[in-house]
């Protein structure tokens, strides 16, 4: 199924603005690193990512990072697009969009490759379907999702049972 859908909102392709909320933000300029801590929520479209700590690695150059990705390599560095290269979420991650939820220990967004990887007791639920595994790799552009590692256990709830615990 389209478990990748859960992440569509967080794709760098979508043109919706991203909002990040947290209790605290620490910017370490020398390392080009911004750390959001405390009730961190990343919202884009109807997708919400919740975690304890979010580390944003950016490049000093405007339009760096993502702009260099193959598909939109704008030679002159392009307009000052967000120069975020990589985002890491720690301390438990929950990603929710309309019908799906994905959880794991941590997540890594690779802007250039447009992928997000959820790592550590990954659980995906969509309505009654549950998939468990060690890692989930989602290509944000193609929406393709692969669950890897550990015992990939898929529980497909039979469609007509009552009282199915949601």
């Amino acid at each position, binding site marked *: 199924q389209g478990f990748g859908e859960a992440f569509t909102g967080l794709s760098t392709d979508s043109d919706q603005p991203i909002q990040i909320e947290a209790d605290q933000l620490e910017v370490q300029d*020398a390392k080009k690193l911004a750390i959001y801590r405390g009730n961190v929520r990343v919202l884009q479209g109807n997708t919400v990512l919740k975690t304890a700590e979010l580390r944003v690695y950016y490049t000093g150059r405007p339009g760096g990072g993502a702009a260099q990705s193959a598909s939109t390599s704008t030679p002159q560095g392009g307009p000052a697009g967000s120069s975020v290269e990589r985002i890491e979420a720690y301390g438990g991650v929950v990603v929710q969009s309309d019908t799906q939820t994905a959880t794991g220990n941590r997540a890594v967004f690779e802007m250039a490759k447009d992928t997000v990887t959820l790592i550590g007791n990954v659980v995906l639920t969509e309505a009654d379907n549950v998939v468990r595994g060690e890692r989930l790799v989602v290509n944000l552009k193609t929406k393709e999702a692969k669950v890897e590692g550990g015992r990939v256990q898929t529980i497909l709830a039979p469609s007509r049972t009552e009282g199915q615990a949601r």
Partner: protein
Amino acid sequence: MDWQADGTMAAPSIGAPWQTTKETRRRLQRFRAARRHSRLVRILRRLLPVSGVLVIVAIGLAVRLAAPGDFDVSVARTTVTRNSVIMENPRLSGFDRFNREYTVTADTATQLLSAPDEVVLDGINAHLILPGRGTADVIAAAGTFNNAQSKLDLRNGVEVRSSEGYALHMQDADIDMKGGTLATSKPVRIEYQDSVTVAEGLHVSEGGEVIVLDGNVRTNLMPPKRAAATGTGETEEPQPGDRE
């Protein structure tokens, strides 16, 4: 302090440009000690204003976080009243020990005789070269510099714009020159390239290397592709987070 032929007191000679902070502190301490103890000085403090140069030096120290290098000073007009010294359009420019140029101007700088360690400034504008990160302009409506504690409190709206694309808007800012820190507990807004971040307070340390925002931090940013996709030269100004 030496008397001049015409009976007026000569400004304390600063002599060769100061080489190092220790040198500066020792010189200042010696000067302050001399000022405090000698009866002559106490009398003079009441009769004659502290020399204008010292005031300007205080401003220079105020903004220049690194040890002062050599500098030059110009003042449009100095007005001496019974209880204060008022500098108009003081302008201080110089080079710090990394040979980076800085310029500090203010509309006026006022030093009350009763509190010689404090300089009240308004219309402050400083242009600084940041270590390794381009230049920054600091604009503040008003401020008070305390020479003894080397603290600069900026008030009534403070803006810091850096050539790196940062713009920092604050209502006030308390700068500790020695500690190299800047702090405010009032709402802050930071624009960086295409992102806007707001928070309820801010603390900058290590001369700007580490910036911590506290309380309801909200960042709004546009995904990179969108700016590239639209191909427009400039990026749309993202509307600030509507949710407070």
